[in-house]
């Protein structure tokens, strides 16, 4: 269908409204009660345009009028502007200070409105009764929690009986579509955390992190409107390749593999039980990961270091070794904390110009370029105090110091007790084994070292393999390590696995059990003992036989055979007796 809008001709499919056609031509028509995701309502009439018909020029709302073939439309001649001015004049009489009305009035050439209303609402965020919120809640969300109440000049938008509505799912769709910001969406405050940390992603569909692989958006089922009301699905409409499917379910996929790399990572130590540091109890106390999030340019504060009140901190205390190198928690060193603490010192100093205090036990800058970075941070003026912090308390007896924190510690280098006021405290919490490490270990038959991380085959000579063939470990699953070390270990493990694949054959230990059928009496004691069911009983011969590929060579059957018919290669009775004679000969 051909339509002419303001003298320009375009081709549009059937059913296109004049407003949509104008948009294709980049012709702007003002709208108030229109939203592309919601059905047209034509209540405000601001989008009025002129169409030429046989019986003269007709004014129609462009949001609701479909194009006809050969239609000629005029969006901004004097006829249209006069009508639009009058409409806006009437609205401004009642809501004189709403910015969007004033903007449209100015565009239409309206200087001062002639009328005034007894119901004048002078708030700039007054409700102009466009009904977008009502329709969004009904059509998009499907909750129908708000509606128009009363009639005529009493008309207003409200929940049933103006009470808190159970139907409202707090999705915020009404606040989003409101052209005057009359509806506001407020997030409840939460102690110790900025609301940004709590909010998480501010839409239900988002890309988890910019580095995620594959980099595709995910739908958060807990905040997605569709899973609450079965409505919405606007993303499905908007997605051109039709890639969104709300029906997808979590599924378990069984894969048959020959080798497994255990790289299950770590958990960050939760400093809440260390009450002396006030995490979760006092404001402006953060863990390393919280601060990392804050420092991120795509994070909640856009990379700014901010206190809960929105100001930059004047001084920040960074506490090393929280939960690590601590007899009460983990005895090991987490290895990464010193360096990320120094990184924080550098970035916080750069971004806030405030004082930074590091409280450390020993500074461990062991990697390539690390020591150089340490001295650079020192030259930048970061304070380092050798001593473990005793406690962090709320200071602020005077108005000026309100909200300040006081760090109490012993400075072991000058041998004195110190109290240092800061605005923010960063706890460098330890790396600890994942809480399901025990189950994973059981599942794969992996041993764990006393600290709870998975045990490698040999600490020096084989740090990527485990005692089970085909099982490898990498990264923090094996022990605390930084990114370069994790990458090195993971690459080594991958290379080891590839080497086996390239070889095409697996070498198995020659330690196997063998039954001498001449001596076997067919008592079948061994059949029941074998944990791998590797011993078959051959009925017609009345003997048992070892199924070689299944046998793992534990020797349980060898020890149990009353006839001595089973030999365990590598560990035969004769060999063990000889060994005994040897060790007891001296």
């Amino acid at each position, binding site marked *: 269908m051909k339509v002419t809008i303001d003298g320009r001709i375009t081709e549009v499919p059937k059913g296109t409204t004049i407003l949509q056609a104008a948009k294709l031509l980049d012709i702007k028509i003002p709208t108030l009660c229109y939203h592309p995701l919601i059905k047209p309502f034509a209540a405000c009439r601001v989008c009025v345009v002129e169409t030429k018909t046989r019986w003269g020029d007709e004014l129609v709302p462009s949001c609701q009028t479909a194009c006809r073939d050969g239609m000629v439309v005029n969006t901004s001649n004097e006829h249209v502007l006069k009508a639009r001015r009058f409409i806006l004049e009437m609205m401004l009489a009642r809501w004189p200070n709403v910015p969007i009305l004033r903007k449209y009035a100015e565009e239409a050439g309206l200087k001062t409105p002639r009328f005034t209303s007894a119901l004048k609402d002078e708030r700039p965020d007054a409700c102009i009764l466009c009904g977008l919120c009502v329709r969004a809640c009904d059509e998009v969300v499907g909750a129908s929690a708000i509606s128009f109440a009363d009639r005529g000049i009493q008309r207003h938008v409200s929940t049933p009986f103006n009470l808190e509505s159970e139907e409202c799912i707090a999705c915020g769709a009404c606040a989003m579509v409101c052209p005057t910001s009359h509806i506001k969406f407020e997030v409840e405050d939460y102690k110790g955390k900025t609301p940004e940390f709590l909010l998480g992603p501010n839409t239900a569909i988002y890309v988890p992190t910019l580095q995620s692989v594959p980099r595709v958006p995910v739908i958060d089922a807990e905040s997605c409107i569709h899973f609450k009301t079965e409505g919405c699905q606007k993303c499905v409409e908007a997605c051109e390749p039709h890639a969104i499917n709300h029906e997808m379910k979590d599924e378990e996929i069984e894969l048959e593999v020959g080798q497994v790399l255990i790289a299950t990572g770590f958990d960050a130590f939760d400093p809440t039980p260390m009450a002396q540091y006030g995490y979760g109890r006092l404001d402006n106390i953060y863990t390393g990961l919280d601060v990392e999030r804050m420092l991120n340019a795509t994070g909640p504060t856009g990379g700014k270091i901010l206190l809960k009140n929105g100001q930059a901190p004047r001084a920040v205390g960074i506490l090393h070794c929280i939960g690590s190198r601590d007899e009460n928690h983990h005895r090991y060193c987490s290895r990464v904390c010193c360096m990320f603490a120094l990184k924080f010192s550098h970035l916080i100093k750069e971004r806030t110009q405030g004082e930074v205090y590091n409280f450390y036990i020993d500074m461990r800058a062991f990697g390539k370029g690390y020591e150089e970075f340490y001295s650079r941070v020192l030259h930048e003026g970061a304070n380092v105090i050798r001593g473990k912090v005793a406690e962090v308390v709320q200071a602020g007896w005077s108005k000026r110091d309100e909200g300040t924190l006081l760090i109490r510690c012993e400075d072991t280098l000058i041998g004195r007790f110190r109290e240092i006021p800061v605005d923010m405290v960063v706890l460098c919490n330890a790396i600890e084994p994942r809480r399901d490490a025990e189950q994973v270990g059981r599942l794969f038959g992996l041993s764990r070292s006393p600290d709870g991380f998975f045990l490698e085959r040999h600490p020096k000579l084989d740090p990527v393999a485990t005692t089970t063939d085909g099982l490898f470990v990498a990264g923090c699953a094996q022990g605390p390590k930084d990114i370069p070390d994790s990458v090195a270990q993971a690459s080594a493990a991958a290379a080891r696995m590839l080497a086996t694949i390239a070889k095409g054959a697996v070498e198995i230990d020659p330690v196997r059990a063998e039954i001498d059928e001449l001596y076997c009496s067919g008592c079948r004691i061994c059949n029941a003992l074998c944990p791998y069911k590797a011993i078959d009983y051959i009925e017609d011969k009345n003997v048992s036989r070892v199924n070689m590929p299944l046998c793992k060579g*534990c*020797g349980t059957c060898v*020890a149990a055979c009353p006839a001595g018919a089973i030999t365990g290669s590598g*560990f035969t009775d004769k060999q063990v007796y000889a*060994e005994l004679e040897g*060790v007891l000969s001296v």
Partner: protein
Amino acid sequence: MKTNSKKFEPRIVGFLCNWCSYTGADLAGTSRMKSAPNLRIIRLMCSGRVDPSFILRAFQLGADGVLVLGCHPGDCHYQEGNFKALRRVLLLKRILREFGVDERRLRLEWVSAAEGEKFAKVSSEFTEEVRALGPLHLETGVLTQFQGEELPTQEVAA
């Protein structure tokens, strides 16, 4: 310091499973932990491989004590070999009593690959315990009657 050549040094044989206890003993060594030097370790793939005749032969050959070390219950590399070791050791203790051998000379312990410290502690403690029991003189005992390749344990018990 003058060493007392008269002091009794017990001879102890340890049967260690390859996956947990032997690795644990290795850890004790690489961690430079001190433990009694009396233990003579024999590595087996699993504590389930410990044939009771090994233990008897050890006593016969002059051991004063035998230590069997395996993985903790549920951690066995071969799923349940350590339980079989437990069954056999408990039974063998009864038989040892009938031989006139103090059952404290045989001990079964669970030592994981991470427990170097426990290995050092167990081996030292056991050495001291056997030292207190004194030497085991089997030269005059019943076990010396059987010098053959196989030890018919059931007949001995009867």
